[in-house]
């Protein structure tokens, strides 16, 4: 009952303090703005995917018409022959998308660092230039977008400071703390109840914001699990800051030292520690300039092209033993054109190897960062939120792996169909596009 009284009393305290009310309103406005930023990006990506898909369909229809009309390719490119698997695959316009999650409304994470659509051909690689981020002002990327996760991770602790900075200390400074003690046997319980009031108030505001977010994208329909997980994460994050600040209030004596300590802790966890970890990782593992990948896609490929067809054929057979059963392989004279056009398969092996080693280096960096989570909680929560909204580095790594699988698949189709001297028709072309 006493605790309930404290809650009710604190509510009166709160409504009589315009400064705190303004801070909370500002927080809510920032939250709404952040949610809209996330939703805008989600809708923008969806619209872009739809636009590309419809363009792809139109391009494919043009190729389908070639088959229907018995034409081999575009008039101004007489060397193109869409009945040949090599050209049919090049004109398959196969795109691979990273579909945005409806939960992106809550965190755009690392979305702006990566591309979300890619045309896949047998000559592609997951590190191609078109896998890079969307065109954006680098200064905006550097400052970052104010999304909901930013509001939670960086503004929520600040709001909490503003709401509780004078709890207990005000009474102490005004000299009526002893009077409070007479009414409440335990000062800790009294302090805790007051702090809990603000924690509950803040959490309710966050829930209200999150519910508002569900109206901007179909989170409940598509990502209800993510919604629950994010709510839980936000709750844990709020509890973490409440506990930290409670201990500050418990041990401090005046408003100034409370504020100083709380702001100090805030700066330590949100600025200093993440920045130090970032700096340390960058010194230990500087940005990769991709020379291995460059070598694989250029010089090593160049060497491949200079090898005799017999050697290339042997390597291809080694890669795809099924080749042995194809028409070309069973011919007594090796079809050099087939071998040359299948060379992309060996090039793919080279790039795959370099891409894997680069990914491993990145994972090593990630492990280093993850090992700091125990003293770097803000970055932990940041990455957890990114994971729930499928905007985490790993989600893009998975996307990149899927692209590699799609390339592998296309390479295999190319080699086997080339070796089998398949004549591509509309049906087969449509199969290529799947």
């Amino acid at each position, binding site marked *: 009952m006493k605790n309930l009284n404290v809650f009710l009393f604190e509510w009166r305290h709160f409504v009589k303090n315009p*400064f705190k009310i303004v801070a909370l309103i500002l927080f809510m406005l*920032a939250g709404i*703005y952040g949610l809209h930023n996330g939703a805008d990006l989600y809708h*923008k990506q969806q619209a*872009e995917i739809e636009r*590309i898909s419809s363009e792809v369909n139109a391009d494919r229809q043009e190729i389908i018409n070639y088959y229907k009309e018995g034409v081999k390719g575009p008039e*101004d490119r007489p060397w193109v022959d869409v009945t040949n698997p090599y050209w049919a695959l090049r004109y398959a316009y196969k795109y691979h998308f990273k579909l945005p999650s409806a939960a992106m409304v809550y965190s755009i*994470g*690392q979305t702006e*660092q990566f*591309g979300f*659509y890619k045309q896949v051909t047998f000559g592609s690689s997951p590190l191609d*230039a*078109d896998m*890079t*981020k*969307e*065109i954006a*002002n*680098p*200064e*905006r*990327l*550097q*400052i*970052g*977008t*104010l999304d909901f996760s930013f509001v939670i991770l*960086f*503004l929520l602790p*600040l709001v909490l400071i*503003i709401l509780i*900075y*004078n709890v207990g200390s005000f009474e102490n400074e005004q000299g009526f703390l002893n009077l409070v003690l007479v009414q409440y046997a335990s000062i800790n319980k009294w302090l805790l109840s007051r702090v809990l009031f603000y924690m509950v108030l803040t959490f309710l505001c966050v829930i209200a914001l999150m519910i508002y977010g569900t109206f901007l994208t179909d989170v409940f329909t598509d990502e209800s699990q993510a919604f629950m997980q994010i709510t839980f994460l936000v709750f844990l994050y709020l509890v973490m800051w409440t506990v930290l600040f409670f201990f500050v209030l418990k041990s401090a004596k005046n408003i100034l030292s409370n*504020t100083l300590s709380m702001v100090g802790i805030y*700066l330590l966890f*949100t600025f200093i520690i*993440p*920045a130090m970890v*970032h*700096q340390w*990782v*960058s*010194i230990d593992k*500087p*940005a*990769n*300039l*991709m*020379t291995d990948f*460059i070598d694989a896609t*250029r010089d090593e490929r160049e060497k491949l092209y200079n090898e005799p067809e017999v050697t290339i054929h042997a390597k291809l057979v080694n890669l795809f033993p099924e080749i042995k059963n194809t028409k070309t392989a069973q011919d007594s004279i090796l079809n050099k054109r087939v071998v040359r056009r299948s060379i992309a398969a060996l090039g793919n092996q080279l790039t795959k190897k370099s891409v894997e080693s680069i990914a491993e*280096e*990145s994972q090593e*960096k990630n492990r280093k960062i*993850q090992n700091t989570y125990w003293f770097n909680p803000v*970055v932990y929560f*940041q*990455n957890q939120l990114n994971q729930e909204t499928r905007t985490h*580095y790993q989600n893009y790594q998975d996307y990149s792996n899927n692209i590699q699988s799609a390339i592998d698949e296309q390479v295999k189709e190319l080699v086997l169909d080339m070796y089998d001297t398949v004549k591509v028709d509309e049906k087969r072309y449509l199969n290529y596009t799947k």
Partner: protein
Amino acid sequence: MWTIIKNEIHFLCRNRAMLMISFGFIVVLLISVFLGIKQAEEQEKIYQEAKTHLRSQWVSIKEMNPHSAAHYGTYVFKPTNLLSSLDEGVNSVTGNVLRVEGHVQNEIVHSEASQMISVSKFGKLKSSLLLKFIVPLLLIFLAFYSVSSEKQSGRLKLLILQGAKPFYIVLSKTIAVWFYGFILLSIVVLSYTLLNLSNSTSETFLRLSLLFLSYAIYYFILIGLTIYFSTRWLRTTIALTSMLGIWMIWSVFLPNILMSSVEKWHPLPSRAEFKTAMIEDRSKGIDGHNPSDARGEELKEKVLKEYGVDSISKLPINFDGIRMQADEDYGNIVWDKHFGNLRKVQKKQKEAFQLGGIVNPFISLQNTSMGFAGNDNLHHQEFLVQVENYRRDLIKALNNEHAFGGSKTGNWGWTANNDFYKSIPDFAYKSVALTSVLSNYVLDIALLLGWLIFILLLLIRGAKKMQVI
């Protein structure tokens, strides 16, 4: 006035807690300078290795057809800037590798940010992070304490009774706390200069001086405003919390919101739209690889007329090289149009963002800090332009060799020798002279100075209406 300033400084030096905090700050600032330099050195090492590796590949080309060499191309890596150890600006998000090849102007790729999970939203532990976000908070607390302690002890009243003018009191307090910030700033700049003495040039010193100046002005603004609030409000904690709110809005909230908004006001095209538009424009020109292209035919007729022959086979030169260069020249017009458009939009975005300095001096500080450190978007764009100019020169040299090096039209097997490839210079980035780009920061500097004057006026007003008790 000097007596009050001296007293303030004596007080700061006598206060044990203050000395401890100052010591801690100095250590962290020195660490940030050291780590910043260390990180820049490590990145520079990787950069030099990659650059040497790529150059050695280029000069090792023994025999190659010049057009094949244009497709083989080369790569340019973004160099580290000396001042990036203080403020790395946009470097971690811009990408580091740029492919230089025929037929196409590529975009810079493989940013550091795309190579790892999210770490710090505010960047690495560079001095700029501390000087922009953390030191101002310390100064706010000091400025607030400087007035509130005087009020609580009644010394303020005593000073006024002794005949000290209120304006001189507030100005002295502002200067005293500002001097403390000045010392921290000087420690960063001096330690940085000492550790980089051998690599520093007059350009570095000029940039460093302007960087120093913009931070010094910003600190004065922040301290002045805190002193004003502290003198105006009877309840000093309101002054402190107001200033904390202002710090939050200025440094965390507004830059983020404003930058997101300017990108909406002046939108950039999506990558797919951008590429499609370029392909469309590009298709209207000559196709260097297509001999039956109609526009190529026109060029052929022109060249035949020029050499007074009636067929390509009679030409003393290789027409393929000429067609390739004509293709490049047309492509260059297309790249200039589209990439130029991107630059224009980004310039508009920057100008709109700079105007944010009217309500938020932190924005002006952020612009000048990145800009004077040579790591803002303007410097990044300048790097991209230099690379593109290099690409054009390189491809032109290759096409000229193809056309006039001694081969005949259609002879794609003809090769240029190693001497020719060695003779092509490597890309050398010319650092942008600050004087050539200074006009871009005039607005930021003017706004900082405008704020400085405004704060002085506020202090005068604050002194007149000072709440002494």
